[in-house]
């Protein structure tokens, strides 16, 4: 019998909407820390690459109100998530403009800023590398000469003596034979610049060492337990004595994953025991000193048979990870395993290289590298369709990977609705139906892209959850998955409510606090609906079993006849039997002997995928099971383009994703709309622009334009496809990051379809379109651009 779901799969008002709309939500900067609060400011390097000769802090220390000045001398150790190549404050050299050279703690932010200006640093400039091709060129200056000495995860392959922080190879099948057998070979070379997350809330940490030696941190973070682990390990403290509290967060998008500036706040607090120390990035610092999205130069070469089937695929990716690869190395790793796109291909050659540059450090950014590499693949697919005479949607259907077919690392693909996504998007956008603008100077064109993405995680990532009942039968669900805005609280609450027969108004889900809530690896990789959701489901089942045991013991009814519904317990054999949870979940049930059975109901649950294995053969990328599953999808746009100015207006978008099961359909559609618009910014405008010395020229919202409410399409059509994930809660898998991925190639493909000009470097600005539309160099019919 099919399970009838009462909460899961139905729309609901978000559990956190009231606190956000009333202003009740207390973000980190909103918490009152009292008059003891100190403020921290940071001195950033003016140079992208330079040796530090000396740092003189004596004048800064003399300024009244200054409590501490901290430099690399105090903290010589390196830190990082996967590759410990990052300094809290560097001792020997700076590797990007803005890199933190010293910090000042003072009684006011103004004093701290004034003290910063009194610190004298002598530098010796070094050659600057800003392009990944220059990074891997022979004779390039080494940005991390000591790379071979860094502590590194065993599944990363650093290349000491070069600027390559990690190299992931895939060698599946026989690439030479594959290309030899191809009837058509199509190539392309592409460039993706750095972009920035631009969370509206900048990074912030308030850290405090109590006088008893405990460290408490209130951080705007996606990764409270990971931060606790890094801090406890680095400081040699017991984990129980480090507490990370995660108040509501004003946007994450990967930028607040792992750990970055929080270590500096902790360093400041260490010097001032008993005082909370606040470090909050300015908008400029947010651009430089948090992280950016990886840049990419890539070369795509695809061999096709006459019937349109891909037989060989070569992809060389040179990732610009910036000054540190501590987190970016995992972007490089994940994309190395997956940079075929959602296609079945028998012969695959991938090189994915983490190239150090003197640009700002890159780490996780919504899409985790898939947006960047998918631009090249999906652009090449469209070009190939034209060359071979296929409809570009049909070419994607022909090659769409099916359940059981081997992915790039030759593990069978999970169940998926790739074809359904393609067909639904094509239908919604009116693929093949020509549209004309009322304005003779404008044309209307459509573009399409298919995408996939897997969560990128260590093989033993895990989630856990506690559920506790209160007297009135309501519950608090404790997880350390973070509500980033994606709807985690609502999704977790609904899963618990479904299992426990609760209405959603009886459920509260708590934000992470490592003293109280159980372990979660991080809220990244679009994996918490699946992973944390499984943990919550198991915790709810645990609580349910305790409830049933209690009722069975008190009423002598076999628990197989009991079920939970309408905030209480019912019985399949006695219609009138109903005990509300409020009668017994704390007090227990009084028997005819006047004793009580039961007691407070608690549930706990955990989840870890036990089939994953990151230890592949480094030469081939094969032999492991590095990814848990892929979520597939497709997107398309209708764009109006001015033939004189190149100005583009996206009239309509349609995107479909196979999320297995929509726990809350409305919120899933919101993820598609939001991700599309974030992708739209990166497709049309967004780019971190650097001068030849590595200084960013557009570190504010005036010059770094993100989409406003007037810039978005008036017609947005999010579509949900549900082919269940076998090990997902109610069949769910994640899809929030994925929604950005189709946008850049869909826009470029629309421009190519409309004007015959192929833009290979994003953003696809109006200026580029106008300058190139009549330039034969960019004509679409060329096989290689």
């Amino acid at each position: 019998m099919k399970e009838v779901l009462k909460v899961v799969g139905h729309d609901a008002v978000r559990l956190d909407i009231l606190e956000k709309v009333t202003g009740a939500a207390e973000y980190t900067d909103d918490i009152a820390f009292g008059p003891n609060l100190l403020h921290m400011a940071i001195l950033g390097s003016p140079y992208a690459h330079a040796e530090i000769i000396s740092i003189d802090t004596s004048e800064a220390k003399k300024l009244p109100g200054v409590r501490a000045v901290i430099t690399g001398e105090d903290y010589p150790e390196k830190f990082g998530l996967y590759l410990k190549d990052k300094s809290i404050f560097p001792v020997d050299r700076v590797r990007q403009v803005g890199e933190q050279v010293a910090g000042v703690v003072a009684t006011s932010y103004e004093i701290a800023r004034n003290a910063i200006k009194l610190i004298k640093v002598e530098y010796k400039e070094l050659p600057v590398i800003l392009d990944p091709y220059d990074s891997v060129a022979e004779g390039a200056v080494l940005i991390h000469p000591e790379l071979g000495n860094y502590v590194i995860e065993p599944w990363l392959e650093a290349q000491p003596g070069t600027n390559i922080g990690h190299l992931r190879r895939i060698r599946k099948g026989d690439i030479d034979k594959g290309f030899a057998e191809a009837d058509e070979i199509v190539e392309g070379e592409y460039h993706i610049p750095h972009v920035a997350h631009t969370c509206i809330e900048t990074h912030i940490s308030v850290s405090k060492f109590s006088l008893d030696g405990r460290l408490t941190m209130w951080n705007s973070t996606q990764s409270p337990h990971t931060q606790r682990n890094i801090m406890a390990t680095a400081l040699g403290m017991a984990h129980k004595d480090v507490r990370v509290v995660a108040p509501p967060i004003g946007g994450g998008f990967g930028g607040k994953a792992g750990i970055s500036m929080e270590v500096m706040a902790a360093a400041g607090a260490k010097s001032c025991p008993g005082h909370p120390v606040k470090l909050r990035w300015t908008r400029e610092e947010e651009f430089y000193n948090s992280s950016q999205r990886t840049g990419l130069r890539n070369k795509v070469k695809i061999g096709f048979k006459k019937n349109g089937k891909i037989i060989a695929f070569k992809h060389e990716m040179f990732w610009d990870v910036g000054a540190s690869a501590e987190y970016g190395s995992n972007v490089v790793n994940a994309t190395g395993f997956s940079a075929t796109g959602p296609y079945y291909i028998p012969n695959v050659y991938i090189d994915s290289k983490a190239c150090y540059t003197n640009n700002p450090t890159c780490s996780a950014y919504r899409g985790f590298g898939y947006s960047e590499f998918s631009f090249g693949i999906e652009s090449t697919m469209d070009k190939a369709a034209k060359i071979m005479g296929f409809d570009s949607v049909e070419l994607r259907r022909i090659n769409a990977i099916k359940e059981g077919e081997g992915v790039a690392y030759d593990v069978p693909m999970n169940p998926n609705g790739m074809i359904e996504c393609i067909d639904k998007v094509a239908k919604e956008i009116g693929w093949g139906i020509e549209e004309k603008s009322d304005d003779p100077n404008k044309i209307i064109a459509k573009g399409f892209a298919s995408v996939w993405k897997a969560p990128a995680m260590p093989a033993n990532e895990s989630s856990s959850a506690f559920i506790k009942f209160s007297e009135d039968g309501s519950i608090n669900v404790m997880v350390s998955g973070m509500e980033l805005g994606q709807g985690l609280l609502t999704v977790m609450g609904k899963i618990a409510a479904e299992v426990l027969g609760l209405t959603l108004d009886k459920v509260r889900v708590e934000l992470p606090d490592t003293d109280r809530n159980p372990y979660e690896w991080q809220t990244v990789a679009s994996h918490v609906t699946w992973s944390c959701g499984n943990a919550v489901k198991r915790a709810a089942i645990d609580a349910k079993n305790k409830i049933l045991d209690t009722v069975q013991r008190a009423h002598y009814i076999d628990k197989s006849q009991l079920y939970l519904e309408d905030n209480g317990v019912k019985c399949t054999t006695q219609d009138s039997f109903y005990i509300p949870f409020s009668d017994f979940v704390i007090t227990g049930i009084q028997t005819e002997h006047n004793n009580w059975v039961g007691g407070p109901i608690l549930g706990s649950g955990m989840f870890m995928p036990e089939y994953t294995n990151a230890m592949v053969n480094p030469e081939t990328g094969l032999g492991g099971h590095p990814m848990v599953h892929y979520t597939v999808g497709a997107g398309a746009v209708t764009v109006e383009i001015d033939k004189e100015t190149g100005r583009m207006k996206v009239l309509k978008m349609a995107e479909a994703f196979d999320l297995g099961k929509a726990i809350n359909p409305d919120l899933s559609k919101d993820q598609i709309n939001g991700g599309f618009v974030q992708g739209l910014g990166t497709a049309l405008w967004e780019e971190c622009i650097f001068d030849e010395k590595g200084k960013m020229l557009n570190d504010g919202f005036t010059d770094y334009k993100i989409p406003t409410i007037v810039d978005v399409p008036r017609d947005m059509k999010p579509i949900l496809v549900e082919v269940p994930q076998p090990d997902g809660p109610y069949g769910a898998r994640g899809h929030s990051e994925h929604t950005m991925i189709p946008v850049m190639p869909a826009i470029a493909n629309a421009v190519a379809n409309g004007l015959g000009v192929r833009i290979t470097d994003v953003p696809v600005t109006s200026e580029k379109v106008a300058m190139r539309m009549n330039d034969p160099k960019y004509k679409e019919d060329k096989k290689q651009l």
Partner: protein
Amino acid sequence: MNHILKFNLNGEAVEVAVKSNEKLLDVLRDKLGAVSAKFGCGVAECGACTVLIDGLSVRSCITFAVEVEGKSIVTLEGLQADGPTKIQKAFIKHNAFQCGFCAPGFIMSATELIEKNPSPDEEEMRHALSGNLCRCTGYQNIVNAMNEVAEDNRKEAGK
């Protein structure tokens, strides 16, 4: 030099010592506990700090505190003396926000708009809210909520 600043905040007379270079946003947040207005950029580019001064929406991050002497300031805290407003209710119903950090600024800008023009058409409404940045939502649910408010006001006016 400290200046004793007097103004009305959310219906109450307040008196607070400020320096001549202090910004209204910092005074509201750090000295008066009105933390709904947020710091997002400090240079009036993102709209997260929007408050109403004598009914007009203003970026409090670039407003010197001393400029509001004798004026009447409303922050999100002060809008809802009688519970959530019609705009807030619509935002709740439509799940208009995700991370929610931009929400107070949006609500203040929307409040000013609806005061001036109770039933704006969609393009007027988008124009009025274009100074408030949101990175999460793609704005669709904000638009849906505001369209509902405008439609409702249109109906009420027609009665």
